[in-house]
């Protein structure tokens, strides 16, 4: 088992090193095969590990790799923790990554930096696996930062575009602000429990004082909002759409952005110690879900809609964590990985067929030209809208049921968001696939063509998973569900009366009604128009002016202070003091210079005066 786990982690790294070492000698096909192959192999090994874990009595195993840092009382090993949570994460990370690697072989064909793309993708998967498999916070942090830097490279992949370069930098900086949270959480926990090891922390979690626990939870929340794009650090994600579409699918839909939620779930025993922390988490999640959904309704770029949709769905996951429904959060994470990757890859297929067009106003009527992309996208659309019996209905339903049990106002917000979700996704669907054909200009009069099999096969696989995904955690399947599997790992949650079966059916009905309402509303409004000042708002389109707000309150003032420091404080104030000393010295020297007048009589007078002073002193001393 230990070897299996180590191999799962190392396979992508092997792929990275192999492609790196072989320079320009490899063909595109070879690179694609190697890179995809190692990730697929990782997936297979993860499945093996999963079954091994089921058979293991402890359901948890530590794999020690080597001693990393050991100073004073700080002992950090490079070690892995194989338990239900990490294996679950590995399963969908490796699985979806493998599909996206395959897809990228087709999508990135002919690109100048094809090799570099796959290098970064492999390195990303390695970092993500390190993040989820680590047995202590510091190694998690290595993976955490690793995915951040890979995201930076991949978003600014088209580096000669200034907008891409800025987007990459923005992503990294926002992540870094969140990282301060993770660092402070680590420091707080280390000084309280003297260990960074998960198992050690969990054993000692009960001894944490309420203040320390709450501060730690808030710090972890800050980290999560940075990585998972929640309020207040979410506005890097839409800009990150500058990267190639497979990047958006992998990093910004299925894996990296889920890292924040994973961290919170992993630290659930600490969350259990802070009711205030959890309440804050729930509010942040709920509000973000709502705000992002409103923004998505007014976006014109297909990828931006999906980006804000991601922020919104992760908001649901964070909300679930906040109310203690950890397994519901993970369930939604997995379902979301399926359908969001499907939607992003599908949109990539659309963009590819229209020679790079991303504006939905220039699409339309594509249903008949894309015989594989269209039906798979349809399934993805139905899933995210929450139509039964697809995965989204069960996952979102699980979350909303749990929220209803703990916090009615947030549940209402969740339902409103569900309506909006169905609405904006249906709007996207209608504008892209139905209605009149507005893309002839982009395709120079030709018909759009379907994508090659390397791109459509992953779509089909993901569609199947979206259809069947609900099975992993059906509300009536006790003993064989995800919740049961994860239970031993999760922290204690205060018990609240579970909703009765009737209430659950009622809630399910409300969910369906919300979805259908949103869907029908979008169809009726958007069937014939492509723009509407009544149903779209500039405020929403400009992300509630969030970027402008940050720019005005933080960006510009800091820039001015920096420039002021460089142009005024440095040369004139601080250095001015130093030069001032030099100037003062020179001036006093000039003054003293006057004593050396060159006049002999003056010197003689000075001598006489000095002589007189000495005489007076000597005479006075005698008396």
């Amino acid at each position, binding site marked *: 088992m230990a070897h299996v786990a180590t191999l799962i982690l190392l396979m992508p790294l092997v792929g990275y090193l192999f492609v790196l070492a072989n320079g320009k000698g490899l063909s595109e096909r070879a690179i694609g095969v190697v890179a995809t192959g190692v990730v697929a192999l990782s997936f297979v090994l993860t499945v093996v590990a999963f079954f091994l874990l089921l058979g293991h009595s402890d359901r948890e195993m530590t794999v020690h790799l080597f001693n990393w840092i050991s100073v004073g009382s700080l002992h950090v090993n490079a070690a892995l923790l194989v338990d239900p949570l990490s294996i679950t994460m590995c399963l969908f990370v490796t699985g979806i990554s493998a599909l996206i690697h395959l897809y990228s072989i087709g999508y990135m064909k002919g690109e100048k930096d094809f090799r570099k793309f796959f290098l970064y993708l492999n390195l990303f998967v390695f970092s993500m696996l390190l993040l989820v498999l680590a047995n202590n916070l510091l190694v998690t942090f290595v993976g955490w930062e690793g995915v951040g830097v890979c995201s930076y490279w991949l978003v600014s992949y088209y580096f000669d575009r200034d907008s891409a370069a800025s987007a990459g930098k923005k992503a990294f900086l926002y992540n870094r602000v969140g990282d301060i949270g993770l660092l*402070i959480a680590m420091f707080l926990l280390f*000084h309280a429990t003297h260990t960074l090891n998960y198992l050690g922390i969990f054993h000692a979690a009960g001894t944490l004082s309420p203040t320390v626990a709450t501060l730690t939870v808030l710090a972890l929340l800050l980290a999560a909002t940075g990585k998972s794009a929640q309020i207040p650090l979410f506005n890097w994600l839409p800009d990150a759409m500058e990267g190639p579409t497979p990047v958006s699918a992998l990093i910004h839909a299925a894996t990296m952005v889920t890292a924040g939620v994973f961290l919170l779930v992993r630290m659930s025993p600490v969350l259990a110690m802070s009711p205030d922390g959890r309440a804050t988490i729930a509010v942040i999640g709920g509000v973000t879900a709502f705000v992002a959904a409103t923004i998505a309704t007014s976006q014109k770029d297909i990828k931006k809609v999906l980006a804000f949709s991601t922020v919104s769905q992760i908001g649901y996951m964070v909300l679930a964590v906040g109310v203690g429904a950890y397994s519901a959060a993970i369930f939604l994470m997995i379902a979301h990985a399926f359908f969001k990757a499907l939607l992003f890859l599908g949109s990539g297929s659309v963009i590819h067929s229209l020679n790079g067009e991303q504006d939905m106003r220039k699409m339309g009527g594509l249903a008949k030209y894309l015989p594989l992309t269209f039906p798979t996208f349809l399934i993805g659309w139905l899933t995210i809208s929450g139509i039964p019996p697809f995965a989204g209905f069960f996952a979102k339903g699980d979350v909303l049921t749990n929220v209803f049990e703990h916090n009615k106002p947030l549940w209402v917000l969740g339902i409103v968001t569900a309506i909006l979700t169905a609405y904006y996704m249906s709007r996207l669907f209608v504008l892209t696939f139905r209605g009149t054909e507005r893309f002839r200009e982009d395709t120079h009069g030709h018909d759009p063509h379907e994508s090659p099999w390397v791109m459509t096969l992953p779509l089909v696989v993901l569609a199947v998973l979206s259809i069947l995904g609900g099975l992993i955690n059906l509300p009536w399947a006790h003993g064989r569900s995800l919740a049961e599997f994860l239970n031993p790992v999760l922290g204690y949650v205060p018990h609240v009366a579970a909703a009765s079966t009737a209430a659950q059916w009622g809630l399910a009905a409300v969910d369906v009604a919300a979805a259908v309402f949103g869907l029908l509303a979008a169809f009726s409004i958007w069937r014939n128009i492509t723009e509407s000042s009544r149903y779209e708002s500039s405020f929403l389109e400009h992300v509630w002016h969030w970027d402008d707000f940050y720019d005005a309150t933080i960006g510009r003032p800091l820039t001015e202070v920096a420039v002021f420091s460089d*142009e005024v404080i440095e040369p004139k104030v601080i250095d001015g003091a130093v030069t001032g000393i030099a100037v003062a010295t020179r001036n006093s020297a000039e003054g003293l210079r006057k004593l050396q007048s060159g006049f002999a009589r003056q010197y003689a007078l000075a001598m006489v005066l000095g002589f007189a002073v000495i005489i007076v002193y000597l005479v006075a001393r005698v008396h």
Partner: protein
Amino acid sequence: MHSSIYLTVLIVVPLLGALIAALVQKTPGLSYVVAVVTSCVELALALVVAVLYSPHVKGAGTWDFMSRHVLSAPLGLAYDVGLDGISLLMMVLTALVLVLALFGARDRRQEAAFVGWLLLLTSFTMASFLSHDVLEFFIFFELTLVPSYFLISGWGGAQRSRAALKFFIYTFTGSAFLFIGILYLGFLNQHQTQGALTFSYSALQGASMTHGTAVWLFLAFAVAFAVKSPIFPFHTWSPITYAEAPTAGSIELSALLAKLGSYGLLRFAVGLFPLALATLRPLILTLAVISILYGSLVACATPDLKRLVAYSSLAQMGFITLGIITGSKIAMVGAVLLMFNHGVITAGFFLIIGFLEKRRGSYQIKDMKGLQGPAPVFAAIFTVVMLASIGLPGLSGFVSEYLILIGTFGTHAWWGAAATLGVVAAAAYLLWAYQRVFQGKATGANAEIADANAKERWVLVPVVVLIVALGVFPHPVLDRISPSVNQLIHHVAPAGVKK
């Protein structure tokens, strides 16, 4: 206990090299060859000593290779050398920086003099790090100013004379206070022991003094080291000096000589005057945090790459100072490690900037754009060095920075939290600089530049290797540093130092 002859050879080899280089100056290129050979011998020897060093020596704790020869008893002058875990890395860094400077920043104008000064600088710096006698340390500390001055004023940029003069006088003035402090301490000790006048480190560590005296002496010592490192607000000599110095000079100054300041602060100020720490800690911690944040802030606005690295160094020296002063063993080990890591990182920066300057004729940011296209290797190596400076885990900078922060947070949480903001600040100015210089579309002269040639790549390889190796396997190095820090703390314990 190994013989001190190793250390003496380490000090004398560059001197001999300088002498021979001067003798063969008539033959073009030969003095460079002599210097290169000398530097390789020096580095090999340094590595041998590093491997031989044993942290458990009977009777001397973690000091190895010791010996003491009194040169003049009435003056208290002695030749006293020793190596411990803290100076071990500095010794290796001295030899390494010489190799990097010679191979990567060769200057063919008046080559004999150039390499001569570099070799002398190496010898004096090595002697400073290896000396176990406070007066001896001071003498060599001052002597390093001479070759630095000549390197800057002879081979530097447009404003080199002004920069060299400012550097020399500013540092020299700070050292004046240090000198007074040393003399006072020596005489105080002599008065107490009623013996000979001695400046031996071990002897002076035993001197007892009132709290007030300790504070004044600490301040006297600290002023000199604050100017050298530099620490806010004594830093204004460094931007112009690093910018106007020739590339080899910038490398030596920022990677190596700056560490004399931190080393002095740790070894002598903290090591000799622990009583003063409790009183002065808040002040110095505040200055360190300001260095970190202010340095990063100004780096965002500065228009040229060399000044950017100068302000970046200011921020990093802030971290080092934080780790030294905060009173946590973990942080102190982190600070010693960061001294080495930062040396490697900043050498990497200046080497690349030097290569770019040779091609573009300028190190102004506005003259460069989109270089990643024509020069992907430079971009890649710059990225590695940049990420190490930002503190990306897996690279060397992170380990040291993390140790400092986690240690500081334990003893002075608010300062620790403020310093953690520096993590974002570093990313801000470096990514911003990278975007302006390497990303975007390259046009005109920028599009024509040649990527790194084989020689340049080979010079940068050790930098990258060290950055990655020390990030993933810091263990062997940490094992050598920890016992010596332990020993220092043992002495400082009355001032309240946490494990």
